[in-house]
């Protein structure tokens, strides 16, 4: 994981937008990937990515360096996504698996995504929202069930049930 020079963070905390832009450049791919996988909606993911960085700017003063800046930022991003969903901004899903597969063919390293990975991304995007969110947080992002419960407000047991359901649906989808 890329380390953030502490002076960049300090300068951004003091209101230096150029320093904040450097932090944005370093992390936008990861933040966008998280939003994209959680929402399965490329347009919505771009909006949420912007919201997450604006929120990060507002909250920078509360970052005390107790965790890596990246961990703080990704956690904040998950909060932004779930707060948005809780707000009930219901929009017609523009599921990129069918409408915009190119959205998943732009990994940051430019190497392109293997066919099996693209199949998996598409299958994840087609999951029901609750199962998809837990799968992305647990199996892709590496959060544990108690952390997911804290982030999303669901019970640990619900998190496990959604994960197992997601894996079952994915196995079925990928075996077709």
């Amino acid at each position, binding site marked *: 994981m890329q380390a953030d020079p502490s002076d960049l963070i300090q300068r951004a905390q003091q209101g230096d937008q150029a320093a904040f832009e450097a932090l944005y450049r370093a992390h936008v791919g990861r933040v966008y990937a998280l939003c994209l996988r959680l929402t399965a909606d490329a347009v919505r993911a771009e909006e949420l990515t*912007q919201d997450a960085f*604006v929120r990060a700017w507002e909250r920078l003063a509360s970052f005390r360096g107790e965790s890596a800046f990246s961990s703080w930022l990704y956690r904040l991003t998950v909060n932004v996504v779930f707060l948005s969903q809780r707000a009930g901004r219901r929009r017609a899903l523009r599921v990129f698996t069918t409408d915009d597969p190119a959205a998943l063919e*732009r990994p940051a390293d430019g190497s392109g995504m293997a066919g099996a990975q693209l199949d998996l991304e598409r299958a994840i995007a087609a999951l029901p929202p609750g199962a998809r969110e837990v799968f992305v947080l647990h199996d892709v992002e590496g959060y544990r069930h108690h952390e997911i419960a804290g982030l999303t407000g669901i019970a640990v047991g619900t998190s*496990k049930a959604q994960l197992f359901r997601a894996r079952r649906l994915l196995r079925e989808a990928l075996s077709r």
Partner: protein
Amino acid sequence: MMCSEREAQLNEYVDGTLAAEARALVETHLAGCAGCRAAVAELRSLVDGARGLPRAIEPASELWTGIAGRIGKGERGKGKRWWRGALAAAAALIIGFAVYRLLPSSAVFHGPEVDGWAAAQIDYARATDELAGALALERDWLEPATVALLERNLGVIDAALRESRDALTRDPGNVELRALFAAAARQKVELLRWATRAAT
């Protein structure tokens, strides 16, 4: 085909979260069940695949310009906070209605209204769930000491609610018990509203 009753166990086995004894039992089962062995192999492949996905995907659009415009204007999220105020107001309205239904509608109490009581319980649960859910998402922004105090106070109120609810189960038409429950419910929603405001 996996033995369906073992789905949770096999997932936990793959995640490495089973205790040693349970893990040994699963391994014994796997030794004699080809379907579950295949399922475990598939689950492992799936989990490995998920971990191997690209960590970053570049957005198709340049997003910085929009972000710079918003932070340059000194946006402090006021526009984004409307829903939290709306949520708190809606929850307060629901809880207010629930409390109203719990109390006698006039000086003359017409006796037990079990249907109204059940409906009020649902209203109350919905309001507090919404506020508690919003708070769960935002609690990281509260000071640890505030979170600790909040949890202590919520614990006290929840205990009062439980006692009132238990007593009302035994005596559903008791006006004083309804008033006690209503008071505790009102306290809880006020505390949650305060906490969601403080966190945002």
